[in-house]
């Protein structure tokens, strides 16, 4: 559908942009590498100084523990279980949060009705829910799912509300003057212009879910990555414990990148030049 001329124009502008970006990225990565180097040397020096692998194992020992974690079926099963919990909990938060956000953003009455309640209940520290959720759901998936969903639902709601409220009145008027139905205004105007905010909320939701799940697993489950950590601690395998911490950081980073990728591909129009 596109003429060759306009294609060339688009490619040229992205090319110019790319060379600039690559240059920046190389420099950025060099700085990162430098920082990691310093941390590793410091870590190594401290480990040598204390010479006690229960307190602080050497980087080499930790990395080899990380390697054996990566091939251990048990650790992987626990990791997958935790990831599954986070995704499921996030899904619950999303399914509840997005419609509520749309309602509260669009209808002032809904916001007045729910806003106060939501604002007060989200002040309860997330971990303060752990004992109660154990009473409610027992040990297992219940409390963790509840905590992930609960910590995730608020950023999703608040960001969605903000997104809907920020839609320019002109867009509504434009759509109406073109004969748009209420459904079309929702699906063609409100949803696409709110997607960036929903994704921002989702990103915060998943990362806070990832953080609270480990904590919940310390207490309220008998499986999962958090549980593996407690086990490593009990077995006094500090290198495994640190390896698992590094692993959880890597997984968290990967999840974040996936969402950022989704953001770029779902809202292409924001990134074109």
């Amino acid at each position, binding site marked *: *559908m*596109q003429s060759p001329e306009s294609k060339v124009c688009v490619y040229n502008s992205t090319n110019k942009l790319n060379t600039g970006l690559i240059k920046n990225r190389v420099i950025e990565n060099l700085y990162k590498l430098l920082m990691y180097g310093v941390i590793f040397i410091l870590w190594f020096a401290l480990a040598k100084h204390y010479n006690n692998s229960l307190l602080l194992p050497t980087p080499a020992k930790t990395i080899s523990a990380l390697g054996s974690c990566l091939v251990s079926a048990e650790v992987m099963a626990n990791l997958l279980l935790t990831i599954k919990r986070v995704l499921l909990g996030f899904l619950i938060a999303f399914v509840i949060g997005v419609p509520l956000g749309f309602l509260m953003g669009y209808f002032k009455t809904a916001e007045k009705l729910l806003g106060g309640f939501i604002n007060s209940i989200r002040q309860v520290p997330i971990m303060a829910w752990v004992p109660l959720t154990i009473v409610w759901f027992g040990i297992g998936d219940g409390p963790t799912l509840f905590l992930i969903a609960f910590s995730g639902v608020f950023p999703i709601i608040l960001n969605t509300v903000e997104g809907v409220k920020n839609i320019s009145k002109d867009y509504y008027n*434009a759509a109406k003057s073109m*004969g748009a139905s209420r459904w079309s205004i929702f699906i063609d105007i409100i949803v696409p*212009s709110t997607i960036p905010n929903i994704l921002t909320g989702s990103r915060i939701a998943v990362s806070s879910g990832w953080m609270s799940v480990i904590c919940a697993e310390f207490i309220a489950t008998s499986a999962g990555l958090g549980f593996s950590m407690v086990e490593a601690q009990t077995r006094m395998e500090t290198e495994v414990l640190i390896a698992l911490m590094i692993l959880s950081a890597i997984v968290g980073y990967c999840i974040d990148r996936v969402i950022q990728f989704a953001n770029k591909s779902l809202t292409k129009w924001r990134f074109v*030049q």
Partner: protein
Amino acid sequence: MKLEIKNINKYFINDKKTHEVLSDVSFTVQGGEFVTILGPSGCGKTTLLTIVAGFQHANNGEILLNGNAVKKPGPDRGFVFQNYALFPWMTVRKNILYPMKQQKLPKTEAEERLKYLLEVAQLDGKEELYPNQLSGGMKQRTAVIRALASKPEVLLMDEPLGAVDFQMRQILQEELEALWMKDKTTVMMVTHDVDEAVYLSDRVIVLSANGGIILEDMKIDLERPRQRDSEKYNIYKEKLTKILKLALKKTS
């Protein structure tokens, strides 16, 4: 086509004081006419246009389009916004197809009309670009043909060149004139720029700053395409500038 604006009154209440923006405004726009509402900022000209569009309501009076009272926005009145209000998440193609989709136009017919409109606006080959990728002129033309897509009875334009600098403005006025001469839809436009009013309109209606009273209803009897350096053109400009100054004085 006949658009009747009948005894329109509009006031806002601010700090318990009534502030009248339009008082008893009446005129009729005939089919095929390019009518411009000229006035200093704050004279209620945009308010009048949005009342015709149905975005807001008058306190008194009525708008009749072909004898039917206007109650709410509708595809019989295309609207071009000052900031264009193109949907940034839709490509040019989807933006223009959107009103036709709302009219439930058959697909082949919509594609044909899309092709025709892109040609008229010299936007062929740009249909897969997003609004962010367009120049100011291309955005403006996209906004105009999007408003024309549903074949409105009248095209309403709210300072369609307000966001553009002076030189670009003249070029875009020429483009707009060329586009209009191909389509000949009835137009009601709002501007504060005398030159723009004379260049584009068949008829200019001047509103006063205070209370939105019609001060002048002038026919611009010039051949198209208009020549900015012609003597007649400049006489019209001078006349309207004088009236506009008067309109401003009435405020102070």
